[in-house]
């Protein structure tokens, strides 16, 4: 047995309307990895991850989940292993109370009633939204809706959790909340996160996959990827601001990802100036 939870071989996908959204994708994701998928809008990120839980079936090529061809399972069966949090929570939430929304998945897993209730309570407390348990999900603000969408997947406890743009459209507080939740989850789960937030990506991802025009353009650690500025520019992506700053500062390393790292590097560059103060 390999330790790959997801193995994609020569995957191509064309939507019935004729859009060729994925071209010859090859990819492996290891158990416990935190992977970020980046790329401009329309590059095929959502289409790719919808193959991981069987919402889409390849036009050609294979998708193997936990050693088994995804073709052989329904999305419902795959949902035990792979949880997909939709890009738009309005597309994902359909019950009339938050607690029923969270209970929907566990009930389908045929859990006993008190186990379901426990899951609902635990998950809502984890995301700190227990107080909204009787609210209509679509009455919540966007930040909370996004958390509820994530919570509805956490409640099923799938090993792989896919988050499709979990921080897009959120304010600073919302982003911080999502970030700390993802960090917590990454201790026990394989995480696949699609994001335009390069700061977030550089902070949490172990590996970055860059998509461009239905293909994988490159993959590597955040340091490896963000150093390739010209390739990134082609896809209209930019490294995190601090990385850009250090790339434009004379004598600085070009793979700096955080402010702390930047300051450390500054100290080694000008030891006399920090002494004189």
């Amino acid at each position, binding site marked *: 047995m390999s330790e790959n939870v997801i193995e994609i071989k020569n995957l191509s996908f064309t939507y019935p309307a004729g859009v060729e959204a994925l071209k010859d994708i090859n990819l492996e994701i290891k158990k416990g990895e935190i992977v970020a998928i980046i790329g401009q809008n329309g590059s095929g990120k959502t289409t790719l991850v919808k193959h991981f839980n069987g919402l889409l079936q390849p036009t050609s090529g294979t998708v193997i989940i936990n050693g088994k061809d995804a073709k052989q399972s329904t*999305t419902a069966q795959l949902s035990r292993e792979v949880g997909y949090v939709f890009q738009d929570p309005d597309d994902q939430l359909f019950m009339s109370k938050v607690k029923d929304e969270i209970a929907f998945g566990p009930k389908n897993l045929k859990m006993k009633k008190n186990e379901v209730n426990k899951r609902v309570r635990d998950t809502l407390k984890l995301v700190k939204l227990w107080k909204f348990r009787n609210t209509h999900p679509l009455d919540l603000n966007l930040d909370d809706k996004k958390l509820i969408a994530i919570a509805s997947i956490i409640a099923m406890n799938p090993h792989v959790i896919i988050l499709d743009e979990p921080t897009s459209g959120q304010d600073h507080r919302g982003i911080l909340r999502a970030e700390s939740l993802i960090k917590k989850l990454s201790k026990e789960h394989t995480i696949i996160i699609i994001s335009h937030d390069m700061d977030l990506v550089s902070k949490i991802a172990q590996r970055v996959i860059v998509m461009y025009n239905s293909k994988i353009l490159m993959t590597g650690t955040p340091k490896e990827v963000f150093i390739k500025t010209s390739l990134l520019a082609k896809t209209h992506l930019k490294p995190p601001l601090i990385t850009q700053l250090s790339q434009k500062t004379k004598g600085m390393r070009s793979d700096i990802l955080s402010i702390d790292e930047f300051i450390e590097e500054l100290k080694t560059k000008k030891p006399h100036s920090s002494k004189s103060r």
Partner: protein
Amino acid sequence: MTKAILSSYIKKNTFIHKLNPLTKLIFLVAVIITVFAVKSFIYNLIIVLAIIPLAYSAKLLSKVFKPLRYLFIIFIVLYGIQSFLYPEKETILIDFGYGIAIWEEGVLFATIISLRLLAMIVHGYFFVLVTHPGDLVCSLRKIKFPYKFGYIVLSTLQVIPRVASQMETIIDAQKSRGLETKGSIANRLKAYSPLLGPLFLGSVQNVVERTIALESRAFSYETEKTSYRETYVRKKDKIIMASIVVFFTLYGVISWIL
């Protein structure tokens, strides 16, 4: 976000696609009037089957029967109720005893109603497939229909594809959380029941948003409006319109005489 689907119109370069929308509309109206005027089942069947050469020539044969997938349940209910309960029962087809039986009159009645429904659905859907909604509104305005009426037509045509794509999205969300939607009828019904709330709420919300969007672009401002699209009634349209009227009048008359 899922792609916004604004209409079922499928662009192709065929004779039927190039006809004026009014010509196609007159055909549709003639079909609907005729299937209700005609009582004989064989004449209605011919009208239903006429869709095959039409759809073939518009290169849409594989698409035109798609709505029937969702409607088969209506036909089952229709036959179920009418074959047992049609009031003017005379001839028994199958007797189950205990006063329960399938009646010939009921089955015939259900068949006639089904054919009418079928004719309206496939021809109606075909019309939507081959007519650009913008062109339709434009040509209605040219024959002095009020533009608000045009908007009503347009938005009604958009309802079906929009609801269908919303339904698909919600079903995807449910499958992703472990709901089995394949297999037994019970499974399917269970999957569809939580759909109704969000679909209805979504539609109401849509109306509110649309109203704001329309009014902020001076939709009800009283003035002569110009059109972005342009349509013409050509000579072939006039000939075909006249033929449609003559043909269907004769068709109706013959079905009554024979």
